[in-house]
């Protein structure tokens, strides 16, 4: 099994995105906390990455021919675990262990803990540099695999990210597809107010990347962006700037006062799961 989404009768991408959100909410309920608003905003991107774009073997997460997925923003681990569970790389039962002692699912993603987790994030701004090295390595091996890496708009503040942006273009890493989650929220407030990064498309284009900006919660737009990133023939690294809505899919969380680490009351996890399901039916 390689590209899961191409199998006949497979769940639709909308169903996958729903399942990722549901898995994330269930993990959040276990811990009573988590970066749930981010998990909800990035679920559509992860659904397209894992069930449309990427090649991998769920039963063999370190299969040499797999596409690599590097989670730079380690605090999004809850979202990636949700996707890895949906992909069959992590058993669903482990969801109950999220953030607990001895769990393979720590709150911040680490390569040594979790199958399918390719890097240890958490210290923000690391991922794109590792991705550049992996992309160089794959080219050395004449591998057709690609490196995908997800990072957050706040990470654009880190100088190392721009080192890697310059380097990937310099080395013509056309096997590298980056996704930046622009939810405009970082620890101390709205990302654009912490350090202005717009006009982001112009900047990244000037740095030599193939750039697309999409509504990261519009599945069809995200699919088209991944397809174009893969099929583009230019010798450039590719980046998808995904504008997302924190809390997406759970209206009362979408409307909650924006915060890096939103507070969810114990009784609200079940309400959130209910709201998610209601949204799916409507």
């Amino acid at each position: 099994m390689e590209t899961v989404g191409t199998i006949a009768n497979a769940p639709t991408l909308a169903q996958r995105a729903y399942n990722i959100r549901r898995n994330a909410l269930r993990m959040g309920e276990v811990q009573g906390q988590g970066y749930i608003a981010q998990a909800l905003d990035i679920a559509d991107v992860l659904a397209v990455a894992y069930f449309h774009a990427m090649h991998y073997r769920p039963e063999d997460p370190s299969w040499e021919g797999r596409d690599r997925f590097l989670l730079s923003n380690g605090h999004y681990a809850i979202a990636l675990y949700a996707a890895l569970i949906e992909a069959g790389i992590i058993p669903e039962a482990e969801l109950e262990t999220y953030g607990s002692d001895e769990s393979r699912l720590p709150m911040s993603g680490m390569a040594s803990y979790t199958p399918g987790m390719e890097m240890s994030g958490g210290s923000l701004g690391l991922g794109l540099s590792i991705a550049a090295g992996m992309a160089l390595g794959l080219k050395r091996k004449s591998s057709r695999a690609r490196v995908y890496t997800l990072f957050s708009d706040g990470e654009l503040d880190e100088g190392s990210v721009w080192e890697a942006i310059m380097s990937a273009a310099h080395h013509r890493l056309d096997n590298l597809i980056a996704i930046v989650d622009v939810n405009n929220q970082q620890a101390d407030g709205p990302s654009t107010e912490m350090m202005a990064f717009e006009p982001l498309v112009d900047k990244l284009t000037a740095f030599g990347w193939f750039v697309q900006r999409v509504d990261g919660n519009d599945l069809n737009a995200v699919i088209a962006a991944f397809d174009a990133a893969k099929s583009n023939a230019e010798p450039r690294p590719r980046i998808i700037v995904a504008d997302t809505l924190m809390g997406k899919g759970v209206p009362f969380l979408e409307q909650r006062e924006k915060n890096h680490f939103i507070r969810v009351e114990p009784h609200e996890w079940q309400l959130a799961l209910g709201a998610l399901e209601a949204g799916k039916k409507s």
Partner: protein
Amino acid sequence: MKPTVSATPSGKPRLTTSAMIASIAADGQRTKPAPFGHALVELARNRADVVGMTADLGKYTDLHIFAKAFPDRYYQMGMAEQLLFGAASGLAAEGFTPFATTYAVFASRRAYDFIHQTIAEEDRNVKIVCALPGLTSGYGPSHQAAEDLALFRAMPNMTVIDPCDAHEIEQLVPAIAAHQGPIYVRLLRGQVPLVLDEYGYHFELGKAALIREGRDVLIISTGIMTMRALEAAKELAGDRVDAAVLHVPTIKPLDAETILREARKPGRLVVVAENHTVIGGLGEAVAALLMRSGVHPVFRQIGLPDEFLAAGALPTLHDRYGISTAEVSRQMKQWLGR
């Protein structure tokens, strides 16, 4: 370490040392050119997984020799040390063995978190090889890595090596390539002194080696201070001081067995000598080992003071900060009451 002599307007001779390309070798000392670069080329002939990477310091870390021999296995990452080590982690993840070079200050101070998180925490097989260790540049604190051993000793998974000379550097290159895991190596580049071949020495990862026997004092030394200790021991012999020299190239993991065996021999002053701040390097590592093991010789440290070091000519600075041969001898005699 041959200073340039020129005249000042007043007519007095002026000592200057070229900051970055100076050799640590004394005038007339036997040397070997670029031992790291040549050894890496030799290694790479039989190891297709070996790649070279640098952050705009290929020429200053002797990696240009590798670049010339294997241009398609050489990655110039630009003057971007965080990227250098992150990308080295990525190449290691893909099965390659990167030798990543820069100056010791930039690896230890600027890129520390990248090495910590992307290399050490993930136990990636990256060899970090860094020039200008300790006080081997007269350029000032920006290029003097007085604290690199302390920083890398404190990092889990990291092996830390401070070689003495060209002979040892040649031998350690294949040895560290045979070891799976991250390693930090202090590099001497350019015309590198050749010393240990005369003693029949052979580098073994993780092993200390008794280079010279002596009854009065045991000098436990690492890096270029083993060269200084051997020179000082010869001088001291003229004053009827019999000095043993135990060379400890691998700072971490420490060869506790050999150090304790030697330190337990009675009646000897124990002196640890290192080209590093007295904080957190070999001296404190040995002191802690001796304390934990209930071994209590009279103990002294030779190392750089806990201060920002001056710019200037290296011979001047090595005298001023107590790590020249003459200063090592003088301190030893003072401690022994000779």
